[in-house]
């Protein structure tokens, strides 16, 4: 029985679908986690509010889409509006992130790192509740997905794409493209720009960087702001995916996978985060397939993801590409 299922799993159409879906999930994970890893790598702040800000991004993105898109809007226009929405959300949340860093996080740098965890944890409560209040004013349900935002998805993204016998959704392809673009964008920013140089220098040794005349405090603010902006952009992308969708519980749903990706990859390495996102995305996709076809246990993919986290921490505590000494280890 298990061998039969394994045989079925290893056929080209099934495996191809699993791989493409896995890549799509990896793309989402890398988008969720990259902001978190940038912030942690440079500042040593484990941002518990990351998931909540992703959720805010999902709602803001949805808001832009719902106001700008009507029934008759064509697919191309919808896509264009979507990119405008991503940029807008990115900009708004970057400003918000900068404000949070300067007013709330900055006073805590000389305290033990636990206080930053505590503060951002408190922020999660506040942000989630504010969103609930705002939704309440507009008479929307906080728990269930925002259907109106989901409905702004262009028609062609809903249709399945069949390439050489592999059936996938166009949405998956779209997500992979955006994920790759994000990775390339961040990589170019980190390695090709002057600011990226500052960030890498600050991650390695912030005292030395400060001694060389870099305004580390300003770099901290910029990185925190950009990290939050990335969280928002990821949220906007999730808003179109029916398995995620814009809802208040999205905050916790994205925070935990983001932690897994960041820890498995190694705290503070962007390369590690990308590799870990692929590992986690693939694991998720494979386990989802096995759950649908063989093993009758509802939480299987989730369970295995947390096991990946635990096993990584036991076998290789610093993560796949992590350097020892980061994060109080």
């Amino acid at each position, binding site marked *: 029985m298990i061998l039969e299922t394994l045989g079925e799993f290893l056929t080209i159409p099934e495996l191809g679908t699993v791989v493409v879906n896995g890549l799509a999930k990896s793309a989402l994970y890398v988008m969720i986690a990259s902001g978190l890893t940038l912030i942690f790598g440079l500042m040593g702040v484990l941002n518990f509010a990351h998931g909540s800000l992703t959720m805010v991004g999902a709602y803001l993105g949805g808001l832009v889409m719902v106001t700008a898109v009507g029934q008759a809007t064509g697919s191309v226009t919808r896509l264009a509006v979507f990119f405008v929405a991503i940029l807008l959300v990115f900009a708004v949340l970057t400003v918000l992130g900068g404000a949070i860093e300067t007013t709330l996080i900055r006073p805590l740098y000389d305290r033990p790192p636990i206080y930053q965890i505590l503060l951002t*944890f408190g*922020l999660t*409560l506040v942000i989630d509740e504010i969103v609930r209040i705002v939704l309440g004013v507009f008479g929307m349900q906080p728990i269930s997905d925002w259907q109106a935002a989901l409905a702004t998805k262009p028609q062609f993204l809903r249709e399945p794409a069949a390439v050489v016998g592999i059936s996938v959704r166009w949405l998956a392809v779209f997500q992979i493209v955006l994920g790759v673009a994000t990775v390339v964008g961040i990589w170019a920013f980190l390695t090709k720009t002057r600011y990226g140089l500052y960030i890498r220098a600050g991650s390695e040794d912030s005292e030395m960087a400060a001694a060389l005349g870099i305004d580390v405090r300003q770099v901290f603010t910029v990185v925190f702001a950009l990290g939050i902006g990335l969280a928002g952009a990821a949220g906007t992308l999730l808003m179109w995916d029916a398995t995620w969708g814009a809802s208040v519980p999205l905050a916790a749903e994205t925070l935990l996978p983001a*932690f897994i990706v960041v820890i498995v990859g190694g705290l503070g390495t962007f390369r590690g985060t990308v590799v870990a996102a692929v590992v986690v995305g693939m694991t998720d996709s494979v386990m989802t397939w096995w759950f649908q076809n063989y093993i009758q246990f509802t939480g299987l993919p*989730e369970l295995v993801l*947390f*096991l990946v986290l*635990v096993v990584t921490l*036991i076998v290789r505590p610093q993560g796949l590409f992590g350097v020892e000494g980061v994060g109080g*280890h």
Partner: protein
Amino acid sequence: MYHTLLNSPVQYEAEMLLPTVETMVGVLYFGLFAMSFDFISGYTGYLSFGHAAFYGTGAYTVILVANGKFPLLGPETPFMLSLLVAGLLAVVVALLVGLVSFRLSGVYFAMITLGFAQVLYVFIRGWDYVARNPRDGPAVGPSHASGFDIGVPWVDQLNLAIGVLTGDEVSLLGTTLSGTTVSFYMVGLVVLVCYFAMQRIIHSPFGRVMIAIRENEERAVAIGYNTYVYKLAAFCMSGFFAGIAGALFAGFRRSASPENSFYFLVSGDALLASIIGGFGTLAGPLYGRLFDETVREFLSKSGQGGGLLPYLRLLLGEGTLSTPVVGGMTVGGLIDTLLNGHASLYVGVVFVLFVLYVPDGLLGTIRNRIGGTFADALPAKLRDEEE
């Protein structure tokens, strides 16, 4: 006390401000959980973010024993015994988690305990042995209709049952204590015993080593302490009390769900209580939880506990309530939107303010102010005045 105030001239104010007895029972058992969280996190400095696993283990053990689904123990097992079993099972879980987790420190320790707890959470949510619908969690079945007894096992007259509706009523000196009030005292008794036990451990040489680990682990190692063993032992003790807390919770509520026992936000609530009450002060988390629950109930919609909203409605009267403010929204509607069930917002704001400006918490700050615990400061003060 509560009822005296409710029959006094300030009854509306009292009803608005004071939490109900039922809430107070919750403060007790969750306070114990928060204390056990503080016992490991506040005293050794290792943030145990998966503490909910022990709470959940305790809660589920009690319900499974009562439903006869626990190996070797029948449904007629005395509650005190299943309480102990719940604690010991939590110790086993803590030992297994701790054995691997204490090789790590800092953020990594927090993350691996979180990981373990979430594995258990997802597992228990999908395991259909524990309940017919594991997502909703188990409840104590009809075969166990009466409340759970707290007292000396097998000595009938020394037992009193706890529970929201199933607790014993007691007639004492002409006044009748309701079931919930009895539960309050009985749960309080267990919590008090646990508190004294933890207090003893903290003030023993063992507790000194725990604090040494928090202050400077390398130096503790250099002096010759095997800190790994100390940390593991402290973690197991902490797990034990967390298990007891979970067992009390399940015994009083008679049901549990994965969301209110195993989920990582339950650990978050304990963290909240610890910080507000005072991190690294054993009694602090109880006060923190009391504060937290009072604010929550104060801002809740309605109910027996009163709260701000019904009070404002009563105070302002119908005329003011229906006055429009902005965009067709009335005063009543505005109050409703801003306050109704949104206590988390205000608790969160208070929490952030505490982290920023009162990092020692309520109890820690008071102790700093008076230069020691109440027990030390009060006699000293009295002595000074005599001289």
